[in-house]
């Protein structure tokens, strides 16, 4: 019964470039963990496959 027993909140984290990053979760730590889900772990040998996506 997630939203009743474990409500989530939105957080804004300060970035070094002065902007903010939106994250959300049950706590700031949970929010940071969820942010890590959007990262894909790759080996350096795979890098060329992703170069065109870097920004």
């Amino acid at each position, binding site marked *: 019964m997630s939203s*009743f027993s474990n409500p989530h909140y*939105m957080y804004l984290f300060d970035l070094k470039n002065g902007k903010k990053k939106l994250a959300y979760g049950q706590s700031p730590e949970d929010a940071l963990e969820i942010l890590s889900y959007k990262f*894909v772990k790759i080996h350096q040998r795979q890098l060329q496959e992703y170069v065109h996506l870097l920004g």
Partner: protein
Amino acid sequence: MLKNLWSKPSSSEAGPKRLWLDLGDLGDLVNPAGPHEQWQDHGLGLLRTLLHQNGLMTDIASTRACKTWDEVRQAVAGYDILLMNVRSYTFPVGYRSAKIFKEVNPKGLVLAGGMHATVALDEMEAIPEFDKICQGPGEKTIVDLVRDPDSFPRVILGQGAKSMAEWPMIDRTLWPKPNSWKLARKFHWPLEPECGWGPGPVVTIITSRVCPWQCVFCNENSYIPNMGRRPVEAVIDELNFLDQKWGVGSIVIHDSMFFQNPSWLQEWLEKYPRQARKLWPYWAAGRADTVRQWPELFEALIKETNWNTVSIGFESGSDRVLRIINKECTEEDNYFTIDLLSRIGDEMEAQGKKAPVFWSNIMLGIPGETHEDAIKTMRMVKYTKRILPSISFYAPYPGSALGNQLIAEGKSRMTKENYHRFPDDEKVVGVDYQFYRELLAGKFDHEINKGLPSLIQHRRSVYSDALAKA
């Protein structure tokens, strides 16, 4: 083109000639691709009703009733004021219509409101043809704005009612008509055509506004604040009126979240079966965690009020992804709800009754989703016994939390020219859409079947046709 689908300005009427332009893709009220393109705009209906009740008459035209932009040009000519409700997915049509209006009515005024004004004000302001832009709800602002637009600044913060109890019943004859004989025959105007959820004529109705949860793919609660729910008896009275006047086949309760506020639902459970002229079947939405919170109430509503198409936004079968989208539901909540409705459906079938089905919103292509997450999602869909899956690729709409973040990071492929809701468009940079197309075409059925009982493994494996407009 059918005649008299919109009335030209009456020369006997005093005062400015006002036209409300219903927005949507050209031809959607002529030869639509599907049922969802034919839904009527409740915002338009409510606001036109309010204007007319206050003596501010308007004509109606629709880009959906036109096959070409030349037809739109003809439809808007001769008016002093153009009113439009602009959503993100109708923004391209809206601003093009505004430009055409100004070409044929150089002294005319364009008043635009709607969701896009709130979530992407800068895009609206960049269109000089929008003379007045109203953000947020407009029902407490529209009459004064239309009566004296010059007394308002260009950007207006609209005021809404505190409760839907303050709203008048929408005059559905103020909605645009279908514009082909073929469509008109089965449209049941001013009610709406059947869409696969229940028999026509269909009544779409709203009992509550604004879902209070904070799913990050949704932008609704960035648009309007919470407001009081419509009284149960007012909803039933309207349904009875519509049935008496036009005959009702089924209902779509188009609330973002019908299954909330248990005291209201309890009253609905008591009164709808007793006070409605018929126990019309209806489509309405819930959440997996609210079903798990109130399972007895859910079961009673299904069995006693003919809630036979249950829309649940399962979205994903992976806890990882459910957390990414801040759904605040878990895999366990989803499966609890699936199993509960399966059991209820089996009981009802054993009694010779028709079992309820899920209309299930499923999202794929969410940033951070792995192949395994997506396979878990399709496994959940396949596991579900009675389901009409509505599958879309995630779309980073402005105004939604995740959408705003992805737009800021430059990862959104959506632009003001293509906010439309086509479900299989590639909308986010870095997502492997080819994988998802293959997934929906059944290429990974073997992986999906792992963990499923053998009887279920033989259920459908191809879901490409389940990609639907959200």
